[in-house]
């Protein structure tokens, strides 16, 4: 029987790692995800997880150790956030290019400067071009589940890409909720053993990994990373379906909430989705036709699902805790790409909010709604809007 325990998302991530039985965990502490490796080191010390726990001197080394271990042919895990993830940056490309299915848990946190340890998504969003798969959890249960799903997808032969699972700093990492811990046996059946076909060390079968590629081969190698990302779309759907069958919890790349007759759909990710669903309920009581959609999968970007969503609304209001300079938020660019050649498309309005742990309140959402309603009425609005900005101190 699965057991239910009250825990933080950090612990949920550690439990997910324990259930996935990685052979090597390498980690360096960083706020807000320090508790993840701490908890795993307890599991290892208590003999509950049979793994090599490598204490490294930086995140750069943590991911490098994971690359080495994964290239040797075993399941690996690490956790980080913010500057720690940024310090991994160059190795993230290497992990994806070498097609190593490493899984990272990321406590989504703002980037310096100024130094800020609180939540936004700038850390993982900044790594969207590395080739890694990206999942975002709304709550602690999702943090656990998505890590298991991430392994399932990452290790699929058609994918073989590393994956990161983001959960909001403090809002989730340090807040307790009841989380169901699935049975080990069921997880074992779901994930199976990691048996790499190519990337493993065997002295009787010498290979070279991390090769040099001249111009004659580099482009093809990069294309295969692109192709693997494309393949991941279908594999993710299959993994979600299988997860639902075994564990009863349903996941979708884009989860819709009260969208059917909605004129305005708020799209967001992570824990903010919970707030937005509440807000939608609140507006619906007033007869305002709004819906919400949550991006569970951000890379590969679910283009088809976005197109289907866009058909349902007159205005898509993107609520983003990240900023991509000159063009707005990252979702704004991605949605633009998905919809640019559609014959009929909704207006897309972008909202930047909640950076660096700023609370997103109903009052902020009212501000966004007012702009979205203007757009709905055909009035001109700014494409990119900063919500809750304290203009008086600027």
């Amino acid at each position, binding site marked *: 029987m699965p057991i239910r325990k009250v825990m933080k998302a950090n612990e949920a991530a550690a439990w997910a790692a324990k259930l996935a039985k990685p052979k090597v965990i390498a980690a360096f502490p960083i706020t807000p995800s320090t508790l993840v490796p701490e908890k795993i080191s307890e599991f290892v010390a208590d003999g509950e997880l049979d793994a090599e726990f490598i204490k490294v001197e930086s995140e750069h080394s943590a991911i490098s150790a994971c690359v080495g271990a994964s290239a040797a042919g075993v399941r690996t895990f690490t956790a980080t956030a913010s500057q720690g993830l940024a310090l991994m940056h160059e190795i993230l490309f290497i992990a994806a*290019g*070498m*097609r*190593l299915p490493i899984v990272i848990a990321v406590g989504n946190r703002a980037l310096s400067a100024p130094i800020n340890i609180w939540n936004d998504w700038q850390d993982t969003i900044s790594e969207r071009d590395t080739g890694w798969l990206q999942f975002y959890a709304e709550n602690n249960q999702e943090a656990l589940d998505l890590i298991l799903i991430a392994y399932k997808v990452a290790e699929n032969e058609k994918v*073989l890409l590393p994956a990161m699972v983001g959960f909001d700093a403090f809002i989730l990492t340090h807040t307790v909720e009841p989380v169901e811990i699935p049975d080990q046996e069921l997880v074992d059946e779901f994930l199976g053993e990691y048996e790499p076909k*190519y*990337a493993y060390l065997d002295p009787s079968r*010498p*290979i*070279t*990994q991390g*090769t*040099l*590629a*001249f111009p004659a*081969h580099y482009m*093809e*190698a990069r294309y*295969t990373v692109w192709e*693997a990302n494309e393949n991941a779309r279908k594999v993710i759907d299959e993994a979600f379906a299988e997860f639902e069958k075994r564990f009863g919890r349903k996941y979708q790349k884009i989860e819709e909430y009260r969208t059917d007759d909605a004129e305005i759909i708020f799209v967001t990710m992570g824990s903010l989705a919970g707030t937005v669903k509440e807000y939608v309920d609140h507006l619906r009581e007033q007869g305002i036709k709004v819906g919400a959609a949550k991006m569970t999968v951000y890379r590969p970007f679910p283009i088809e699902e976005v197109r289907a969503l866009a058909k349902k609304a007159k205005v898509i209001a993107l609520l983003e805790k990240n900023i991509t300079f000159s063009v707005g938020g990252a979702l704004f660019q991605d949605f633009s790409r998905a919809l640019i050649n559609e014959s009929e498309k909704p207006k897309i309005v972008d909202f930047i909010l909640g950076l660096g742990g700023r609370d997103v309140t109903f009052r902020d959402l009212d501000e966004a709604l007012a702009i979205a309603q203007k757009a709905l009425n055909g009035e001109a609005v700014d494409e990119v809007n900063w919500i809750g900005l304290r203009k008086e101190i600027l």
Partner: protein
Amino acid sequence: MAESPFKADIERVQKEYSEKMTPGAIATIPGSSVVNKTGSWRVFMPEFNRDKCVRCYLCYIYCPEPAIYLDEENYPVFDYDYCKGCGVCANECPTDAIIMVRETK
């Protein structure tokens, strides 16, 4: 010019590598250094004067690639596919049998 003694190896590796890109661009058999022809980025190339050579093999020993092998009469032969033009051989040669000349393509 005498044929490279590694011709068969080179052909085997080249065939393997040109067939299919593996996930992660893994080289599934050893020998990727054979396929990656370092000679392509050379600016200067060694020019060999057989008459001056005393067959001391210093060039052969010092070549870092190693792009020098010996022919049937034990004279050095330069494999320009892999010679990267570093000039070590020319510097080591006691008789100036090797000089570096600018390569034109």
